[in-house]
């Protein structure tokens, strides 16, 4: 099993880098995962990460990218609820990459 080091604590992740146990998540986990991808988290990133965590809490699922885009648009406005904006923030795929930083499993279906 792979792991990441977060402030001296070893946290288990799966082969694609998603947390093995969702309860291990903290903001530091997100920052360290992002750093490994050469990505510095801004408020705009956090907005999406926090949105995903709330979404998972409510529906127990990481949304497909199409659903994420639509839901973000509803909550944060059309200038953010579009693929271009989300891909600029998360170039590896907004659902996939943001879910990873949010400590969620890989989304079901189209990522």
């Amino acid at each position, binding site marked *: 099993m792979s792991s990441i080091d977060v402030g001296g604590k070893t946290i288990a992740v799966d082969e694609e880098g998603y947390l093995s146990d969702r309860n291990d998540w903290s903001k530091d986990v997100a920052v360290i995962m992002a750093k490994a991808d050469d990505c510095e988290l801004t408020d705009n990133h956090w907005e999406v990460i926090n949105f995903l965590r709330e979404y998972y809490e*409510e*529906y*127990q*699922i990481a*949304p*497909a990218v*199409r*659903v994420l885009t*639509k*839901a973000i648009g509803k909550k944060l406005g059309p200038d953010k609820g579009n693929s271009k904006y989300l891909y600029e923030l998360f170039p590896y795929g907004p659902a996939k990459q943001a879910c990873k930083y949010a400590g969620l499993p890989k989304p*079901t*279906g*189209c990522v």
Partner: protein
Amino acid sequence: MSDDEMMQEGGTIKKFCYVNRKAPYGTVYALESLEVVLIGAAFEQDVSLIFMDDGIYQLKKNQDTSDSDMKNFSPTYRALEMYDVEKLYVEKESMEARGLTEDDLVVPVEVKTSKEISELMDEQDVVLSF
């Protein structure tokens, strides 16, 4: 083949029906069915879900799985609407046999009699039973 290519090729929309007949836990059928529905939603087909027999329990409110090793995935049925899966049917006879009404379920459904359900199945291009 990528998802995009498949969607472009599939010009015609087919009627897909998922029939859910088993209790939510104890077997993986209910969760597998739900995942297939969520994944299949990307193909933008005409999707209906039928819940009958013990499958009705999949939609029951207030599920508590804390004593089992399984995740309570019943909240996920409430996400179906966002995946544009909006046709959910329950069989009247199965509901009555279990003393359940629509108020006991986590999502809005349409109640159909056994006869209506079989007519609905007849109209489908694809019926997948879980």
